[in-house]
């Protein structure tokens, strides 16, 4: 086990190196930029056995990754905000082709107006592209999740987006424990060859199809995306057995056992929210935290299993679900618990938009004010 004390962007580069990635194509964008710089430095020095393709834009970055996957290579890219939006059509192609790509998205608010700071409007607006979406709340989790993402992607053959909040995680330094390479290699054994565009077996891929076959492709993707939850759980458990690290699987819980009031959130807010839980507990409110780690597939059953009848749930969203009642996570959670609507109360607070400050006190206040809980 090696200790690393570095920024989130550099931790991403180290994880990509440990994952024995074959090809990285990426385009710089704040706050992801130093991921690209670090990978360029590591490949150029030979420290990382990988080819780095400095493309001219994010659409090209994803297109290069897609083509690399078509010859069975392990490919990677990282982006943020507008870069992710610029990739949009290729994201659909990647999942439609069932290519096991992994991408890190450093969450940043979207244009316009122009801003550089964190919220989740970028990744959540890509929720229907067929990519699995995992969210992290610490740099150790970022490192672990990138490795788990390859484990998952290569088994379900669906691409995985690993999300980390811009600046809050990408630019802060934390200690990360890196498992020994032999352990990582054991965890990430190469899966049977994914080289489809192979002259040994010439065939046409992603070409024209009619209403006879097209629905089948989509239905299969729909089912496999939903059923990917089992492999996400498996990845977390195999990783824990090999390394001892645990960040949750589809969700992670904190002090939920006897709780009647819950905070549900994603990303770095889930780290800060632990302090809110402790504070509320001190004030006599039986509160627990549910961190949603997998937003796609949405862990409806896992969430429902944690929530008892009579539960009060405060969803903290770092995004606006434009044209809806609140945030996107709030809408998703409400929809997934619709059958228990009479028994569970769900409230929503939007905070942290465009990098605005979020602290444990504010999150605790959201809970107490929603249900008029006296201090």
């Amino acid at each position: 086990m090696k200790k690393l004390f570095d920024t989130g962007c550099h931790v991403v580069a180290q994880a990509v190196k440990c994952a024995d990635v074959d090809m990285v194509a990426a385009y710089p964008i704040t706050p992801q930029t130093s991921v690209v710089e670090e990978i360029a430095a590591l490949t150029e020095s030979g420290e990382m056995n990988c080819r780095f393709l400095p493309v001219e834009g994010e659409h090209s970055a994803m297109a290069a990754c897609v083509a690399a996957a078509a010859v069975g290579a392990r490919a990677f890219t990282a982006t943020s905000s507008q870069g992710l939006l610029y990739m949009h059509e290729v994201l659909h192609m990647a999942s439609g082709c069932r290519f096991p790509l992994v991408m890190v998205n450093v969450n940043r608010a979207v244009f316009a107006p122009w801003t550089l700071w964190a919220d989740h409007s970028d990744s959540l607006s890509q929720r229907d592209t067929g990519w699995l979406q995992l969210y992290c709340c610490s740099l150790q989790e970022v490192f672990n999740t990138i490795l788990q993402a390859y484990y998952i992607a290569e088994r379900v053959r669906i691409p995985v987006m690993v999300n980390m909040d811009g600046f809050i995680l990408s630019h802060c330094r934390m200690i990360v424990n890196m498992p020994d390479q032999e352990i990582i290699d054991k965890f990430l054994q190469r899966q049977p060859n994914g080289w489809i565009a192979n002259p040994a077996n010439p065939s046409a891929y992603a070409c024209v199809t009619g209403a006879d076959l097209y629905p089948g492709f989509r239905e299969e993707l729909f089912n496999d995306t939903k059923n990917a939850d089992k492999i996400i759980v498996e990845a977390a458990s195999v990783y824990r057995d090999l390394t001892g690290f645990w960040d949750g699987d589809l969700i992670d819980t904190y002090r939920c056992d006897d709780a009647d009031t819950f905070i549900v959130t994603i990303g770095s807010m889930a780290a800060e929210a632990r302090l809110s839980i402790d504070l509320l507990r001190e004030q006599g409110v039986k509160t627990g935290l549910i961190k949603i780690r997998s937003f796609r597939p949405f862990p409806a059953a896992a969430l429902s299993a944690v929530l008892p009848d009579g539960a009060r749930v405060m969803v903290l969203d770092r995004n606006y679900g434009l044209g809806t009642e609140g945030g996107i996570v709030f809408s998703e959670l409400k929809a997934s618990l619709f059958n228990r609507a009479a028994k569970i109360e769900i409230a929503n607070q939007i905070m942290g938009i465009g990098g605005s400050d979020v602290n444990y006190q504010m999150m605790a206040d959201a809970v107490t004010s929603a249900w008029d809980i006296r201090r």
Partner: protein
Amino acid sequence: MTTAIKNLPRDEIVMAGNGACGGCPATAALRIVGKAFGPNAICLMTPSCSVASIGLLPKSSFNYPILNICFAAAGSSAAGMEYALESLQKKGRLSGEKPLVFTWIGDGGTYDIGFQALSAAAERNDDFIHICYNNEAYSNTGVQRSGATPRFAATTTTPTGKQVEKKNMPLLMLDHHIPYLATASLANPGDFYDKLIKAKNSKGFRYIEILAPCYTGWKFAAEDMINISRKAVNCGAWLLFEAENGKIEFTNPTRKFVEGAASPESPAEYLSMQGRFSAALKGENRDQVINSMASQIADDLQSLRRYSAN
């Protein structure tokens, strides 16, 4: 010596039952590509006539592994694939010889929507061959104007004829300092074949563009496809040359025009054979249109002379 058509290899990459129009120039050109590149190649295509003519999934009428990729991304997809193959080979995880990666792309995916990614791949000197089959319009969507549509040509989005000149794409690519570039014509298949072989035996970014007279878009009789190809070359509307490391060598008859040993034919007959120019050629503007075309050809030849002198 140019390879004679009767000496081209017998290998066929284009199989019977494909969905192309009878007399499709792109499909005829792709046959020659297969003969030159042999079986160990991977073809990337962007949505286009050629993809539409492969046949419906899971059938394929082209005997290559073909990946249909996003329209704007020929350059970056081919680059990503080549980088990946190189990396896999270095890690000892590629069985057999590394396949040749090439793109087979129309003028839309080359001149227009694909230009950015293509330009970037050329600038990086990525190791693949880009082939543009230029039918001078978005033929697959029913013939709309493209950056390769010549002035005066009618398309569904320029119903009275295009008002502006086409881009000079081969010279734009040459300005990317690429190691190999060539233009070709279906009227000279042996020359096209030789240029493909030369490209195959070079390294780095290679660009080949072949004029693909599309009879449905240009509005002429299908059986005249090769005749139109020849007329285009003989009047200078399509210029034949190649450039190794920036040094231009002309192919006849373009060579004679550049050297002043012969003059191009008047474009009058070439234009008159095509329905797409009929609106422009109607009435009193006829001579003006023909003269304007001839003078543009003279300008293009002059640009090429300047390039070859460099």
